[in-house]
């Protein structure tokens, strides 16, 4: 794809995002048509509708876009790092690791120490989990086989998930708070959370983008990357740090939301090929769009009740994952 085609694609996706965001502003228990919306935005003085719009719906939309982009960006990085199309923050345990860190922070009332405590704890948890999966999944070094990686990811996720459950049961007075958060909550967002989460995600995704060309080289194998002068071990560490930072921010903001980080990079690669400097922005845009639409579905399908958004993404992404797994195993048999 030539440069112009890429620019058109990015512009089209951005337009779709804007359109979806505007649409999402109108949807909700109180429907606000677009003309009324424009009146509200230009009006002065407090009104209930204005508050709904600016303090409830808008931050929620921004959060969905941010978290979706973060998960998609981290997914792109993890897939490139593990040379494995099935890797994503959820599958390889980064999300559950972050959840464990965040759970501990919540239980220890760490938010009293400052707004950075929760995301920082999530970051440490996610780093530890990915490190463990990496060690287990590529013990022989080099390319991890999809199966080993999945098994290692599943094992670590299960262990870490049990720890989270254990902590929740031991502190049952906080159970419902934790449970809601873990299931992926975009509902309880405030601008305050976005104020720390947004920059964290931006920093993470930007770091991944700066590592895009080395990620391309790594796609050709360790030896080739090394023979082109890439310090492979140091680079791997950098990408794990960047992707885990991004994942941790997403999890700290919205709990565990699966499969966005799996689906979005795949769709992006289908659209723009394998060059990571292009895959990443497209993947992030798609991830944001995906999560926004999933959230719209989550809050309108079973009205007046809300479904946790992670259930929607899993219902859509889970089958896609199985499809990839099946296609992968068939491709291996054919070889």
């Amino acid at each position, binding site marked *: 794809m030539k440069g112009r085609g890429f620019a058109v694609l990015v512009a089209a996706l951005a337009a779709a995002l804007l359109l979806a965001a505007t649409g999402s502003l109108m949807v909700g228990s109180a429907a606000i048509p677009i003309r009324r919306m424009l009146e509200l935005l230009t009006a002065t003085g407090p009104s209930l509708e204005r508050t709904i719009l600016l303090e409830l719906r808008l931050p929620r939309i921004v959060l969905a876009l941010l978290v979706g982009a973060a998960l998609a960006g981290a997914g792109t990085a993890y897939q490139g790092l593990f040379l494995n199309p099935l890797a994503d923050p959820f599958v390889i345990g980064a999300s559950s690791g972050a959840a464990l860190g965040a759970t501990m922070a919540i239980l220890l009332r760490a938010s009293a120490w400052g707004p950075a405590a929760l995301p920082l704890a999530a970051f440490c948890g996610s780093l530890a989990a990915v490190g463990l999966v990496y060690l287990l999944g590529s013990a022989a070094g080099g*390319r991890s086989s999809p199966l080993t990686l999945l098994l290692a990811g599943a094992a670590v996720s299960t262990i870490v998930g049990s720890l989270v459950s254990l902590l929740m049961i031991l502190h049952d007075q906080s159970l419902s708070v934790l449970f809601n958060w873990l299931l992926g909550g975009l509902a309880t967002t405030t601008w305050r959370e976005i104020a720390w989460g947004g920059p964290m995600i931006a920093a993470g995704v930007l770091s991944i983008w700066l590592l895009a060309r080395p990620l391309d080289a790594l*796609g050709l194998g360790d030896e080739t990357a090394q023979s*082109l002068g890439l310090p492979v071990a140091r680079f791997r560490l950098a990408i794990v740090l960047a992707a885990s930072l991004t994942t941790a921010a997403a999890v700290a903001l919205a709990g565990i939301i699966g499969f966005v980080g799996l689906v979005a990079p795949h769709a992006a*690669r289908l659209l723009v*090929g*394998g060059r990571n400097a292009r895959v990443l922005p497209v993947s992030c845009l798609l991830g944001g769009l995906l999560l926004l639409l999933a959230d719209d579905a989550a809050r309108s399908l079973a009205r007046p009740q809300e479904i946790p958004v992670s259930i929607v993404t899993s219902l859509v992404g889970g089958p896609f994952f199985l499809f990839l797994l099946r296609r992968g195993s068939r491709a291996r048999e054919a070889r």
Partner: protein
Amino acid sequence: MPLLAARGVACSYGTRTVLQGFDLIAEPGTLTALLGPNGAGKSTALRALSRLMRPDHGTVTLDGRDVWRLPRRELVRNVSFTPQLETAAWPMTVEQVVLLGRAPHRGWLRPYSREDREALRAALRQVELEDLGERDLDTLSGGERRRAMLARALAQNAGILLLDEPGAHLDLRHQIELFDLLRRLTRDCEVAVVLSLHDLNLASLFADRAVLLSGGQTLAQGPPGEVLTAELIRQAFGIAVETVPHPRNGATMVLPLPG
């Protein structure tokens, strides 16, 4: 032109020694072939030369300086390595893969410059892949893919080209074309090429020097005609052969004798 040299290099995987007392000088304008049976240490020697593997003993030097003490960037500007088999984990176009060869010059962050584009075009022209630049690597034939990998090494613009079995999996025509190209590069651009290969006759026809390895030891080193004797081949491969001069150019041809 830079000079890459190995002196008394020994390498091992764990406790298993796979290369011992390996000496080599990659001279500009020379095509050197590493020969020997499977497991003789050919690939290991190339890995040691390209700093992918640290020797237990001995040194590899570039212009007299130990490659392990050189800045990484400086080494890869002068020495390129092309592995035997390369698969892309993601769909990548030929151009994209060849441009990665510019990383030693451009770094990993700065956008590719016009100079890089020119190096890309020149490299694709040399391997005759100009029309396939936008194709996905996966869609190429074995020979085209080989040439794409070679183009990346050329775009790297290094004085020393190390190639691990560049002729593997190619049909006869593509093998001959590839070696013609390598010899042309050696002569015209004064590069030093060191490659491993299995076909003794190709080595005889195209290489200036041959190194015969067996069990990690160097059995002989010199012009192919001196290295490819029936006795040395028997020692290395454990088979009986007869050698005859090529009717056109007198190069030593190795004819196996059925048991």
